[in-house]
């Protein structure tokens, strides 16, 4: 095991980076594909159906127990992938060919680039410090994720426009308006978290690893995940995340009931498949960020940080505290949480019907954005009162203002826009 570590350390840093990058991509891509199968299975089970369970290549049919994999539809995944690669990749005659071909590639770029700034786990080094597993541990991690993923909208705009056809165009227009609208509330909703993290006198940071670190402290408030501290922010972020990833109930850009297939109507084969994988990659990155910020990252449970678990493992056997083991453990916990979030995405998709486009816009601008701003103001005030130790009177004033504002928004049964 040590040999592996030494071999790894002996590699050129550039080569290390390339291998790490490839490893992450090598996980994201198949996970995107597998998610499509899971989506089919989950939807089927929720609807009382068995889902895909037919495909079985004849040359493996003799393997005992293979029928379980068959019932789980694993070979459908292979068949779907194979189909994507080998079916005829038609290029309609009326499209703008350059942008038409560019769009799926553009869709993949932000999906894969954002991974670099997302910590995927952590290990405890010899000095006892928790070191995050991250490709580029930059100070402004969250901003990098937001910035790069905001470029994802170009894929939809370009696909819609280059298709030179009504429905894709409408899909592209919808997508761009929706993504820009919800980016605001999304960004605003995470600011309280970092206000909370960046205590006075400390180092200013936007690092996601720092956010996890903050949730792994000892003590009641220290081990508390942010979902408990600022639930409104978490909800606003989650809803915006659904909108940003174009998932139901916000998949206005596809809207097969009214737009055939939305921006990807004219696409087929692997070009379409890239959009598909990009959507799942977006979901995964978004879920990862959500979990890092609000659900304690790679900590198994609230108030039970990873380091505590490592302590327990050390009590069982010192071998288990080896960085590789701990790294894999944290990675497992984190990926498990992310996959559960993916499941939540599917769960919501097969529960809630699609919004109308005017409802989407109304919710974004008239509900979520004011809510995010109010949330930000509330926590700014709260943090100020806490840090400056202004005393009970100010707490009482904040409580009164909050209650009054809440009453003003919700007490009036008339459907006035909130705030």
């Amino acid at each position, binding site marked *: 095991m040590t040999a592996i570590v030494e071999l790894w350390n002996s590699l050129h840093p550039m080569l290390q980076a390339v291998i790490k990058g490839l490893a992450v991509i090598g996980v994201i891509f198949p996970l995107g594909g597998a998610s499509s199968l899971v989506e089919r299975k989950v939807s089927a089970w929720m609807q009382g159906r068995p889902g895909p369970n037919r495909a079985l290549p004849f040359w493996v049919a003799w393997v005992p127990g293979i029928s379980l994999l068959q019932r789980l539809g694993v070979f459908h995944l292979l068949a779907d992938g194979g189909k994507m690669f080998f079916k005829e990749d038609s290029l309609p005659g009326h499209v703008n060919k350059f*942008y038409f071909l560019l769009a799926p590639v553009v869709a993949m770029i932000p999906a894969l680039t954002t991974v670099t700034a997302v910590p995927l786990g952590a290990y405890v080094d010899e000095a006892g410090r928790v070191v995050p597993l991250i490709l580029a541990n*930059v*100070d*402004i991690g969250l*901003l*990098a994720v*937001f*910035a*790069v993923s*905001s*470029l994802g*909208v*170009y894929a939809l*705009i*370009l696909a819609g*426009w280059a298709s030179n056809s009504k429905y894709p*165009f409408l899909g*592209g*227009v919808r997508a*761009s*308006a929706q*993504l*820009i609208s919800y*980016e605001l509330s999304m*960004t605003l909703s995470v600011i309280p978290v970092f206000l909370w993290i*960046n205590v006075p006198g400390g*180092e*200013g*940071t*936007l690092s996601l690893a720092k956010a996890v670190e903050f949730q792994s402290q000892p003590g009641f408030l220290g081990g508390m995940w942010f979902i408990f501290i600022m639930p409104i922010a978490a909800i606003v972020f989650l809803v915006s995340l659904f909108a940003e990833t174009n998932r139901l109930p916000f998949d206005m850009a596809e809207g097969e009931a009214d737009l055939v297939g939305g921006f990807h109507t004219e696409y087929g084969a692997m070009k379409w498949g890239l959009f598909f994988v990009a959507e799942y990659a977006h979901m995964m990155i978004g879920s990862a960020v959500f979990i890092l910020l609000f659900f304690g990252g790679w900590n198994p449970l609230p108030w039970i940080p990873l380091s505590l678990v490592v302590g327990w493992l050390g009590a069982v056997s010192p071998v288990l505290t080896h960085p590789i083991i701990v790294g894999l453990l944290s990675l497992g916990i984190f990926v498990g949480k992310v996959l559960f979030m993916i499941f939540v995405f599917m769960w919501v998709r097969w529960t809630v019907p699609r919004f109308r486009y005017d409802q989407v816009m109304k919710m974004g601008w008239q509900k979520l954005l004011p809510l995010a701003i109010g949330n930000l103001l509330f926590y700014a005030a709260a943090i100020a009162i806490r840090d400056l130790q202004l005393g009970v009177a100010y707490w009482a004033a904040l409580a009164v203002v909050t209650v009054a504002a809440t009453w003003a928004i919700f007490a009036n049964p008339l459907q006035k826009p909130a705030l």
Partner: protein
Amino acid sequence: MADFVFYTFALLTLGSALAVVLNKDAVNAALCLLLSLVGLAGLFVLLDAALLAFVLLLVYAGAVVALFLFIIMLLDTTPGAQKPFGKLSAAAAVLGGALLVVGAHTVGINTPATGSAAHVAPSLKNYAELLFTTYLLPVQIVGFMLLIAMLGVIVLSKRFSEAPETGVGRLEAGKAP
């Protein structure tokens, strides 16, 4: 290595900026602008100004250019339909060029040569402190200007879209046999 990356990004930035001006198709121009911004962000990263780079990407590349594209696609501008190079454009070009030279010169004499003195990577905290202390007034002024511009746009677009509804033409249209 760093030089190679710098020249690559510089070439990308300048080349696509030139393409923005020279391109006849508005969509192409907007996308070249995007490329130029990405290149600029890369240059910022080389200068260890990662925050600036990603804010640039987030605000300009992610939102502003997307809105440009949005408008261009909705208006369906046909390439080659713009007006010829007029006197006003020439004057604007001369003025802009002069400003560029002055600005570059000012920046050149005010900036210490590379490699000298305390070159500290600007942290998030530095930016925040400067923004909320030294540059608080400019930030607020710029914010108000943007607000005023936004309100102006809303008022202008409202008036134009409502004009035919209250105008005489509509009444007459109703009376037409």
